[in-house]
């Protein structure tokens, strides 16, 4: 800070703390709701301080019958589905984007620019604008209610391809020349030189894509009808509907907590990579 005025500096912290409280409040309230029993969660005003039922709620949510009166998959299975979907989407996107960026940067071939523009076009076609026909394609391919159907239509990525293109362009030309003199073919160069050099970019992108994949909602909602394929994020909506009959807020909020923890954990524990990934892909 340029000047040293105690009053302004106190004010700065007060405002920031207020901001943090406002931002964290919904998450705090979710946590608190997950630590009380059903009875307490049906009395207004609701508690603002944690109770002692967290383990019990977790146990019931994860392995018990879940929400009474609703026919949903067990929550541990939903977590597994979400994990599978998030991993397939993020790793799939990274893999195919790395390969296409490699082709575009390191080769000259007829229709190279056509390929480039076709990839670019995906930027302009979010799933929301082509819901029905895409659903039909997936249905015709028999991919409804499968991990493939959940992930493959989402793994084309213009942003990831452009990011890797940018990264590859900053690799000095002499790396390639040196590798060619050393006798490395294209794929060997890709594995031995390019991949290790892009390590942090890959990790940063993975953080962003994992969150993107984990948080998918509309797409899984459309193509999964089988309860055993439900993802954790989808289940919240079903629980909210069920809550109108039997408001077991402690269980619903424990589920919400479980759905938030993996992506939040990724963001906080890999904050540097997360920030790098965010600023690189959105430029």
């Amino acid at each position, binding site marked *: 800070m340029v000047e040293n005025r105690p009053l302004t500096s106190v004010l700065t912290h007060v405002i920031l703390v207020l901001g943090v409280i406002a931002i964290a409040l919904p998450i705090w309230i979710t946590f608190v709701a997950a630590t009380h029993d059903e009875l307490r969660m049906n009395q207004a005003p609701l508690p603002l301080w944690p109770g002692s039922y967290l383990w019990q709620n977790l146990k019931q949510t994860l392995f018990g019958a879940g929400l009474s009166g609703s026919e949903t998959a067990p929550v541990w299975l939903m977590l597994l589905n979400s994990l599978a979907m998030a991993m397939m989407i993020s790793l799939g996107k990274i893999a195919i984007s790395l390969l296409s960026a490699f082709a575009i940067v390191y080769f000259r071939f007829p229709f190279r620019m056509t390929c480039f523009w076709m990839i670019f076009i995906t930027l302009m076609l979010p799933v929301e604008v082509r819901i029905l026909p895409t659903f039909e394609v997936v249905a015709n391919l028999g991919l409804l209610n499968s991990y493939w159907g959940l992930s493959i239509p989402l793994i084309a990525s213009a942003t990831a391809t452009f990011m890797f293109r940018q990264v590859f362009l900053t690799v*000095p030309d*002499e*790396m390639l*020349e*040196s590798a*060619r*003199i*050393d*006798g*490395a073919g294209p794929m*060997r160069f890709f594995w*031995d*030189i390019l991949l*290790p*050099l892009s*390590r942090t970019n890959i990790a940063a992108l993975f953080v962003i894509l994992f969150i993107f994949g984990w948080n998918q909602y509309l797409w899984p909602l459309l193509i999964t009808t089988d309860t055993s394929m439900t993802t954790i994020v989808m289940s919240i909506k079903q629980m909210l509907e069920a809550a109108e009959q039997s408001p077991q807020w402690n269980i619903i909020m424990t589920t919400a907590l479980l759905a938030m923890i993996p992506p939040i954990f990724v963001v906080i524990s890999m904050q540097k990579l997360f920030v790098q990934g965010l600023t690189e892909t959105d430029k």
Partner: protein
Amino acid sequence: MAEIHLTDLTKSYGPTEVLHHVEGAIKDGEFIVIVGPSGCGKSTLLRMVAGLESVTSGEIRIGDRRVNELEPSARDIAMVFQNYALYPHMSVRENMAYGLKIRKLAKAEINRRVEEAADILEIGPYLDRKPRQLSGGQRQRVAMGRAIVRDPQVFLFDEPLSNLDAKLRVQMRLEIRKLQQRLGVTSIYVTHDQVEAMTLGDRLMVLNGGYVEQFGTPIELYDRPASVFVAGFIGSPAMNFLPATTGPDGVTLPTGGTIAAPQVQLDSVLLGIRPEHLLPDEAGEITIVVDMVEQLGANSLLHGTLGGTDHAMVASVAGHVSAARGAQYRFSVAPEQLHLFDPKTQKRLDA
């Protein structure tokens, strides 16, 4: 080890020809320096030998093989790059071993070669470090090491010293020369620095605008430059050039004075005189009006103009000279140290 033959070598990018009919025969074990200003095509020529640029027409032979169509890795060459091009994620050892690993050499053999090269270059203690943990000079050595371990027929150097500071450059220059003599590997070295070229090369190929101006030993280039360009490029400070007319007594300077010179067929010529060949002589025909003196310690450089004209002249005089601005000095020059050029073709004129 091998000879290299360049035959009628041409390189074009689209319609633009950047190298024109380059010819050259390089003997086994010779150290050749390709020198010229930036953009003269010297790096392109080197990269064509390396296989990193395609050949438009003509032929490159290494040993008894035509290599035009061969991949870089199949040409049995090694290259040291200007920015070293070390793989940043590999240790020094891995960097040196990479090419050998691809060629599927036995582990023991790879280790033997790496250790040997590390010994020669005195980089043994750094073998397990990453390139970023090394100084510029050490990286330079690693880049050389990577070339040595391959035991190639040809070394190619692409301005390998230009990223080093002046003192280190001089030291590494000597080391490269010693190393090459010790290993006896045919080498091609590209630089824009004429001092580097003169001190390193057995022979120099001077390139200008895609043409070979001259290909010869440093002394040939200094004593008998084939063109105005070579004459001006080789030697420091650069040669003085004056227009002159020829006559039976020699050549007549713009000042009107005549000095003895070899006889040539042309009426008007471009006269070249090296600054160090101007001898102080009270009776000399060449007068320099001093603008400025550079004191270099062992000698002094007199910058000025040819008396009564505006032709710039430099003279190198032994010892200390302190001349005031406007002072006049007279010089003479031995006829055999005059260089005569055709003003039109810019080529050397011989008697």
